[in-house]
């Protein structure tokens, strides 16, 4: 019975995926498949909430259920439900594959949910692939428009980069196995500790992170990002942009905590990657015209911000990173709700097409306003509190230069976020503007309100969330910043 409770979220998702498989076998029953997927999503939220305080080691210790994994599962399940709600009737997916779309969506989430519990290298690899391959299939499911097969192009890019990054990751993992003779992370950590300064260990760790950098879209593993965001349908892009990043941060925490704070090589590597991502993402986002593409580049920058938390290599830093990426989930989903509703017939949305949004739908405009200002890091939204906790954690470890670079980057980023606000709210007359009002369904309205409340609440009253994340990360050895926090 406890086993079932420990494994409940995964079981719900697996059973749901099997059910969707059966549904997909019949005549295309798109509505029915969507209902089943939604039920699965809500059941997963319930299951994750029910198993929140479980602790167990399953499958000979390869699979760890602890507060950390259950917390992330809850976040993932919530994001899954949001994505299903914002997907609506999948206007831009080919009609004959719509039921399968829901099947692969559920499978990908299953992979991510399993990923955060894995503490053994082989199972991490399996879970990572389970979460990735359905995504590779979801991207090309978009309809063809006017002979352009851009969805195929982006799918090929996505899969090629993905497979390459995973290959590099496996290569690095083989080094770690060779050094320590185990595939379990916890014995691996203790056996790695004496040799962690050797070039071989650093190379192994560095290479092993690559697969996760790819998921997070860290520079220079980002090349797929803008093209996939643009080429995939709006709904698929909302998935690619949100949940895998949460999963990647969670696994990265498990991995990076293998390195000790006294080891400067890993921190230095992370600093360079963070700085590269921030500058690259923000500077290129400045000139984007397509909203999704802009979000792609801004996502690269935000992945860079999240890495700042890892640079600290301690509990406070990891807490900040996980808190930040959870907030990012809310912000990016709020943006994608707006994209998928403003979009005409599922097409991509140029930033100019947002013009006059406040007249067409005040609620969507408000959602966009909150999301964009939150992404820009303006208080009282979660984007500010997240950045603040990241900067504090990094500064506590003495990374002043990184902190200054990060704040300079947030100043650069303000410009392109304001371009969105300007179109959506400032009420310019624009030839591209469409006048007819957007009527939102009640689930969409509910979703908008939930996301706005989430972004504000996580920013104004993050005390409980930060504390919970902090305590769930007890498996990380504590560093000086943690001591500074007075614990």
């Amino acid at each position, binding site marked *: 019975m406890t086993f079932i409770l420990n494994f409940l979220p995964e079981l719900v998702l697996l059973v749901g995926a099997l059910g969707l498989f059966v549904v997909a076998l019949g005549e295309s029953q798109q509505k029915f498949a969507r209902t089943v997927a939604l039920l699965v999503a809500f059941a997963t939220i319930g299951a994750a909430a029910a198993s929140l305080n479980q602790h167990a080691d399953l499958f000979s210790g390869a699979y760890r259920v602890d507060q950390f994994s259950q917390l992330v599962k809850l976040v993932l399940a919530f994001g899954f439900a949001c994505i299903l709600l914002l997907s609506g009737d999948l206007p831009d997916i080919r009609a004959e594959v719509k039921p399968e779309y829901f099947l692969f969506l559920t499978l990908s989430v299953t992979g991510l949910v399993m990923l955060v519990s894995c503490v053994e290298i082989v199972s991490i690899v399996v879970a990572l692939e389970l979460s990735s391959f359905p995504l590779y299939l979801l991207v090309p499911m978009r309809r063809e428009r006017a002979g352009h097969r851009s969805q195929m192009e982006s799918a090929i890019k996505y899969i090629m980069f993905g497979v390459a990054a995973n290959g590099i990751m496996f290569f690095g993992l083989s080094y770690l196995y060779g050094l320590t003779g185990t595939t379990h992370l916890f014995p691996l950590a203790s056996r790695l500790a004496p040799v962690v300064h050797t070039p071989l260990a650093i190379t192994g760790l560095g290479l092993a992170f690559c697969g996760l950098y790819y998921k997070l879209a860290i520079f220079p593993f980002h090349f797929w990002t803008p093209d996939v965001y643009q080429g995939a349908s709006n709904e698929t892009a909302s998935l690619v942009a949100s949940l895998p990043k949460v999963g990647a941060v969670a696994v990265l925490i498990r991995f990076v905590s293998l390195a000790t704070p006294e080891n400067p090589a890993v921190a230095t590597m992370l600093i360079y990657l963070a700085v590269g991502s921030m500058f690259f993402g923000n500077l290129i986002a400045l000139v984007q015209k397509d909203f999704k593409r802009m979000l792609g580049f801004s996502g690269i920058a935000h992945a860079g911000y999240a890495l700042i938390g890892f640079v600290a290599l301690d509990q406070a830093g990891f807490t900040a990173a996980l808190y930040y990426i959870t907030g990012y989930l809310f912000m990016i989903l709020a943006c994608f709700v707006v994209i998928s509703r403003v979009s005409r017939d599922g097409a991509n949305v140029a930033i100019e097409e947002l013009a006059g949004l406040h007249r067409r739908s005040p609620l969507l405009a408000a959602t966009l306003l909150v999301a964009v200002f939150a992404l*820009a890091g*303006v208080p009282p939204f979660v984007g500010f509190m997240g950045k603040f906790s990241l900067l504090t954690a990094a500064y506590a470890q003495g990374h002043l230069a990184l902190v200054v670079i990060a704040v300079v980057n*947030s100043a650069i980023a303000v410009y392109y976020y304001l371009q969105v606000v300007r179109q959506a709210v400032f009420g310019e007359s624009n030839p591209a503007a469409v006048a007819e009002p957007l009527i939102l369904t009640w689930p969409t309205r509910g979703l908008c309100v939930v996301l706005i409340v989430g972004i504000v609440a996580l920013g104004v009253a993050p005390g409980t969330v930060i504390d919970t994340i902090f305590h769930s990360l007890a498996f990380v050895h504590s560093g000086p910043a943690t001591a500074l926090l007075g614990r």
Partner: protein
Amino acid sequence: MTFPGSTEGLPLLSILIFAPLAVAAVAALIRSERGLRWWTLAGTTAIALFSLQLWTGFTAGTAAFQFVEHATWIPGLKINYTVGIDGISLLLVLLTTLISPLCVLCSWSYIKTRVHEFMLCLLVMETAMIGVFCALDSILFFVFWEAMLIPMALLIGVWGGPRKIYASLKFFIYTMAGSIFLLVALIALRLHTGTFCIPDLMGQQYDPAFQCWVFAAFFISFAIKVPMFPFHTWLPAAHVEAPTAGSVILASVLLKMGTYGFLRFCLPIVPYATHVFAPYVLWLSVIGILYGSFAALAQSDLKKLVAYSSVGHMGFATLGIFALNTSGIEGATLVMINHGVTTGALFIAVGIIYERLHSRELAAAAGLGRFMPVFTFFLGAFCLSSLAFPGTNSFIGEFLVLSGGFSVSLLLVACAVPGVVASAAYNLRMLQRIAFGGTHNPEHHDLKDLNFREIVTLAPLLVFVFWIGLHPQPFVNVMHASVQHLLAQVGAFPR
């Protein structure tokens, strides 16, 4: 830290900070625009009357923070919700609550589109502004400080003039770029001392080099907000394009946040660096006075004229602050209040002209005086106040500032004097043209003089012009102890 001034009973400051939000929440539910205007007016007026309790309950003889409330906010990051006021912030809070209902009144017929959003922005602004002046936790301060950007950018960007987008983006990016350094400085102080509590940050023995870096970070963000001379370029654009209420808030309250920041952060927290940098800041202030006044003299757009005069007046405020003596700082605080009253009134007056003529050109407004005698009376009083005519409020403030500056350097004050003369020149030029110039302007014949609402808008400010001008003692009394305490904190650090 324990606060001796902590009082049991009604959490006055929290009520004051969050009351505008409560008014906004109800306002969002009101359907009719007329009802909405009346509700917002009633709400802000009630808040203004409520804030008088601070004035009556304030103990003037002590420098301790009063009405202190303390609660844990985010324990994981050691951020607390701590609010409290001293004599300096008391005056600024009262100024804010006074200005808010006037902003509703002066937008009564000016704002015709998206009235709901407009009122929400005004009310959110009020919460953030009161919050900035009350916050005693540096992150709480920062949150309010930044939260103000969004409604202000919307006020300019949505309801502004022809170049509103440019002005709004410039305002937002400029201010945001400045304040991120403030955040870094606050984090640095926190890691040094282990607290975000502003009173606890004061009186610590920081390393001189550390102090200088922190001062530099503070200075960038506060100087942009004031704005001081090389950082002022966002101000004319924002003022000119903003709707009347936006200009009034910007001039009366937002600019004070920069000078308030100097008083609350720079002087007491990094006194050594304050002494090191004070001469340079003083000269920048003098340049600001000269630049602002002479630039105002050359303007033909009324709003630009008043905007540049703000640069000059705020130069007096920073001059007084960095003179680092009693009359300098008390004068600077009075200049802050006076500028809020007088320049706010002048922007309302320009708004009144604009509503009638749909032009802000000085030439178009020439000769209004013949047809609008009541308006001219008000304008005359405020212009005299703006040029620091004896008997008006600005005279007291600028006199104290100059006498404070005098004891620092004669040359400094001597250089600032042409600015005073120019300020008389541009104010009198404006008054002369509007009241008596070009009487054969044909389209002026059917102009209506001030209506009752407009008189009600301007009258409270006129009262303060003469109240502070003729009997400034109550205002000086409430801040005297706080200013002395502040000077003791600055002086405690040897030069």
